[in-house]
């Protein structure tokens, strides 16, 4: 195949690469990831920090696969597919690392509202209870005199309720960086939140943990929309869950176009008991890529109110 000047090559003529996924040949456009190749080969891959509308950060490592010739496993979500790659997605090494990542998260975080992670944890047989330390109940001198064992360190954080629009429960946060990306380079360009601290103590934070209404946050809710664990949650959902009334199975979704301005963002209205409980936008929508502004995201409150008032961000600390 002749290659014309790179920049002149039209999109449609992108070269294709063929690689092997679990012994099956698949062909994908050059520049696609191993993850895309797996999908093309009908191999489902667990992901936590990857999303179709965000730049891959490859930090959770649950998507790792075995690449022949590579000393370590490689992240499928960000590693470009190359011609001739031999990939195993279900080897003992792959299953072990995936299970351990899920187990580590289960041992450190409250994953009760992270349904996808829970599903994968079941599939890979993750058992976070292994870290509870029961096995060390042997006293060295046989006296049965055991020093105190505090149990595995977990992420402990109070729920941050600082406004009427969304809450932050960072004990559920698995540090997938999605909210940071959505607030920053990938969508909102507001940079209200970032990762602070180091190691196990790393957390998503505003500067000096300032309350959201005092921060740069413009309440677009894009961070909430991408959060995979419920660490960020719309107040509507949080309040309904608190009274046991959050029933996703009873919700209908209606697609509409936002009427606040002329951009034409698609909105998905999630309706339960004839009330809008959540607004999202499809990640594959050409205008939004899933991201919205405060009006599209929260402006629906006028539907239920006698007269629309801008959503309040008054601090109501918990």
């Amino acid at each position, binding site marked *: 195949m002749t290659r014309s000047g790179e920049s002149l090559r039209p999109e449609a003529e992108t070269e294709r690469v063929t690689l092997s996924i679990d012994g099956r040949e698949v062909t994908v456009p050059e520049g696609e990831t191993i993850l895309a190749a797996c999908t093309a080969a009908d191999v489902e891959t667990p992901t936590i920090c990857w999303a179709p509308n965000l730049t891959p950060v490859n930090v959770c490592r649950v998507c790792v696969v075995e690449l022949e010739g590579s000393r370590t496993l490689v992240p499928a979500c960000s590693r470009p597919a190359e011609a001739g790659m031999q990939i195993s997605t279900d080897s003992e090494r792959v299953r072990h690392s995936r299970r351990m990542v899920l187990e580590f998260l289960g041992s450190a975080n409250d994953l009760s509202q992270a349904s996808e992670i829970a599903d994968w944890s079941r599939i890979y047989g993750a058992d976070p209870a292994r*870290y509870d330390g029961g096995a060390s109940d042997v006293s060295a001198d046989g006296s049965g005199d055991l020093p105190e064992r505090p149990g595995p360190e977990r992420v402990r954080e109070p729920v941050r309720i600082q406004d009427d629009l969304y809450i932050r429960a960072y004990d559920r946060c698995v540090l997938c960086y999605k909210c940071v990306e959505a607030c920053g*380079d990938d969508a909102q360009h507001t940079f209200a939140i970032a990762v602070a601290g180091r190691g196990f103590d790393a957390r998503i934070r505003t500067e000096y943990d300032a309350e959201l209404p005092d*921060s740069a946050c413009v309440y677009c809710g894009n961070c909430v929309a991408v959060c995979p664990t419920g660490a960020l949650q719309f107040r509507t959902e949080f309040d309904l869950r608190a009274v046991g009334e959050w029933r996703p199975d009873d919700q209908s979704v209606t697609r509409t176009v936002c009427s606040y301005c002329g951009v034409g963002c698609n909105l998905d209205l999630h309706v339960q008991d004839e009330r809008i409980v959540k607004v999202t936008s499809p990640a594959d929508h050409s205008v939004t890529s899933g991201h919205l502004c405060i009006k599209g995201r929260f402006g629906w409150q006028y539907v239920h109110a006698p007269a629309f008032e801008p959503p309040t961000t008054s601090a109501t600390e918990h």
Partner: protein
Amino acid sequence: MADLHFSDAEPTASERRAVLAALSVDEESDGAVVVSHPRVVRAGMQRRRQMRHQLLPALHALQREAGWISPGGLNFVGRTLGVPPAEAYGVATFYEMFRTEAPAHELSVRHVCIDPICALAGAAPLAEHLRSQGHAVHEGPCLGQCERAPAVFIQGRREPDRVPADGSGPDSLLVSITAPAPEAPSLLRHMIGREPGQSESMSMEAYRERGGGAALDAALRLGTDEVISQVTAAGLSGRGGAAFPTGIKWRAVADGEGPKHVVANIDESEPGTFKDRLLCELEPLAIIESIAVAGLTVGAEHGWIYIRGEYPLATQRLRHAIAQARSAGWLGDDAAGSGRPFDIELRRGAGAYICGEETALFNSLEGFRGEPRNKPPFPTTHGLFGRPTVVNNPETLLNVNEILRIGPEAYRSVGTEGSPGTKLFCLSGHVGRPGLYEAPFGMTLDELLGLAGGVQGTLAAVLLGGAAGSFVGPDAGGLRLSLEDTRAAGTTLGSGPVMVFNDTADMSAVVERLAKFFCDESCGQCVPCRVGTVRQHELVTQIRRTGRSTEPQRELLGDIADAMGDASICGLGHTAASAVLSAMRLGLLGDTAS
């Protein structure tokens, strides 16, 4: 970028002055370095932040002036450099040397090393003593002074940082060279017999008299291809720990297009390692010369020194050497008469072991959190500011000088076939004369220990390669210290630390501290390392408490090790279990129970 939002907090007048002074000093002295480059973040996301790479110098200035990074000070830095406050806060909280809560005192802070060698030498009572004297004390990881443990570093409040041991007469350094012939390679030979503290010997004239400048002359005479082929023929591999062939790295960068960078990685934070500090303190002009050789060879315009923040004397001497090199015409628009521009800018780290990992170093230098990037792409194509970059350890760079001075054949006359040349070893702990030793690759461990005055007392274990390395037992005296022999024995030389423990050392305490080191130093980015290091430390603590390990505990440790080694992003996670596993094998953590 969108308009940035800042809180109402304002800087004090002195904070403002301190920040501006730090920034203008950099502008003045490093004007030759062009600062605007697109940055490739992680998987190719591009950002353009012209000023952001000055964030670390600005935070250092704030910390020294106010004793912490105050909200007003942070706002001022953010406004000046165009950095969102949340991100600047994220950077400030990444480093050991920066505080983000107001201190209750006006004091300089005494950092006391609590890593194994200093712990043996009485770090805990020393810290207690300093506290009782009314000093502010911060206990932290290895300070790179293991040969004179217990180590202290004073982070100045409105005064320069300093190391008390630097002021007490001639350096306590003991150097020994075992290169057999005069023409054989030796990095330390010309440094011997000098009083390292004498500033006179730091002059360009004195350096030239010792033969300084010969490598730069040779590099310009030989040209890019010949220099690289000599480095390749000499079989030089990186001395920073990964032992990657230097010739291959330089070739790749020389072949790259556009602006390029050379970075001397002097972050040296591996527990037990202090060689780079001594090299910079003893012969700073040689380091500058070697960076210029690298830069002119691969066609880079920008040289950078990233040195750990706890090395004030080495930093001062390198700065002095850069100034001298500029006066002598080695650096500047027509560097060393090459007709091409090359200059060097020095940056101080702020206390983070992970920033020695090359891609974390790039992020740190660019003003981002020191989180490693995923590889590929590699630094040779996407390095500092997303440009092709040579990053080398200073010992590696000095070896290039040596190769250019004596030629690849003479260079290969010592060492082994697989590991030509010499290696600097940092001996610490229970040996007669802790210090820096240069020995040909292939010398046995016993011979090396003999050079250092032998083991004090009865040997219990030697930790090779530092926290990222592994323990060997008393029966390993015959181990040949080469890359291939240590690899075959399932251990590593790493960057050259050799930490010696006799049977009076509480080895389980040593192992527990190493496990804690990784928890503290993990950047926290990836799950296997962020959580795995904590679970590993918990298990080690449990085993230590009970005095023996059970089968399920050992299985769990193995499971954690496999996941960290296989699925982590960077070398920190990949090696975080190595010392612990080797300690288990040697029984250093107590008996095994079923």
